[in-house]
């Protein structure tokens, strides 16, 4: 089984995938990174062996990323199984069959975003491209700001689940060495060193 962890954004999620990529179980919390990650994984896993651990590496929350990645990395190292980084915005983009603007919470009214065929960026609600409906986990106030700015949020019922989307991204994702996971988060404080 493959365990997928995403604690990078305004909601947290875990999923358990079978070797063929089908979803054996998944859980999405309505709040941020602090939830019963270890308990959730233990209950979902039911003692079944893990062959890989996949973690969302952002862009996203400074603390959230550290919670999910340290847990996933510890598990992978302990079980001696590979760790696979998954870009947060790629997972959200993969939830839709149609082209979408993937978004993720960046705090203080800003969102990370990824439009089809473009580079990921950081913007306020009013600066986001509006050619595509948006998919992603935002705080309620941030989502309201997007809608007020004219961004359409894609209807949840038309989207794949987190686990199904992660399985798609995993098809092309590669494992990395334990010490080479890279986290992406906001760093607007530039040093003068």
């Amino acid at each position, binding site marked *: 089984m493959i365990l997928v962890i995403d604690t990078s954004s305004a909601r947290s999620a875990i999923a358990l995938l079978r070797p063929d990529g089908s979803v054996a179980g998944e859980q999405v919390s309505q709040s941020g990174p602090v939830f019963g990650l270890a308990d959730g994984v233990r209950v979902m896993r039911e003692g079944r062996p893990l062959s890989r651990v996949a973690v969302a590496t952002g862009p996203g929350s400074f603390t959230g990323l550290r919670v999910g990645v340290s847990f996933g990395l510890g598990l992978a190292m302990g079980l001696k199984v590979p760790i696979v980084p998954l870009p947060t915005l790629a997972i959200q983009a993969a939830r839709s069959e149609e082209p979408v603007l993937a978004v993720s919470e960046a705090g203080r009214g800003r969102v990370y975003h990824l439009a089809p065929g473009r580079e990921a960026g950081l913007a306020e609600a009013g600066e986001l491209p509006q050619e595509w409906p948006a998919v992603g986990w935002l705080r309620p106030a941030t989502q309201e700001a997007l809608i007020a700015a004219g961004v359409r949020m894609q209807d949840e019922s038309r989207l794949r689940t987190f686990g199904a989307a992660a399985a798609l991204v995993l098809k092309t994702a590669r494992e990395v060495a334990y010490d080479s996971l890279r986290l992406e988060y906001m*760093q607007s404080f530039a040093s003068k060193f």
Partner: protein
Amino acid sequence: MATTTLREVTTASAAETEALGEQTGSRLKAGDLVLLAGPLGSGKTTFVRGMARGTGSDAQVQSPTFQLVRIYPGRVQLAHVDLYRVKAAGELADLGLDELLDGGAMVIEWGDRVDLRRAELVTFENLGEDRRRLRFEAEA
């Protein structure tokens, strides 16, 4: 970085410096950033002690030189950051300052070591004995 000097104040005692800090603290809201600059012993931590009281916190304020960040819960959370020992950009990135600013206000000692817009800068000068000159500037 363009700055506008808002005012200059000379204080005659640590209590006066702290009172100025309390004024600054009392009008802080989440997302506000105050940078403090000035040599060791010029009154920065004393000023922060006042700021914390101004935010309604009764936490004990100490220089976070070795902890790098201290958090004072109050009407608005105040994160107290000290960059004296931070020597590299990577160490700065590991402090997660953006997320702290998302959850409250922030004051940074040795704040002239970061390049950042939309902050208030307070520069401290030691005039001898307990006298200090504080210059308040807005960065734009």
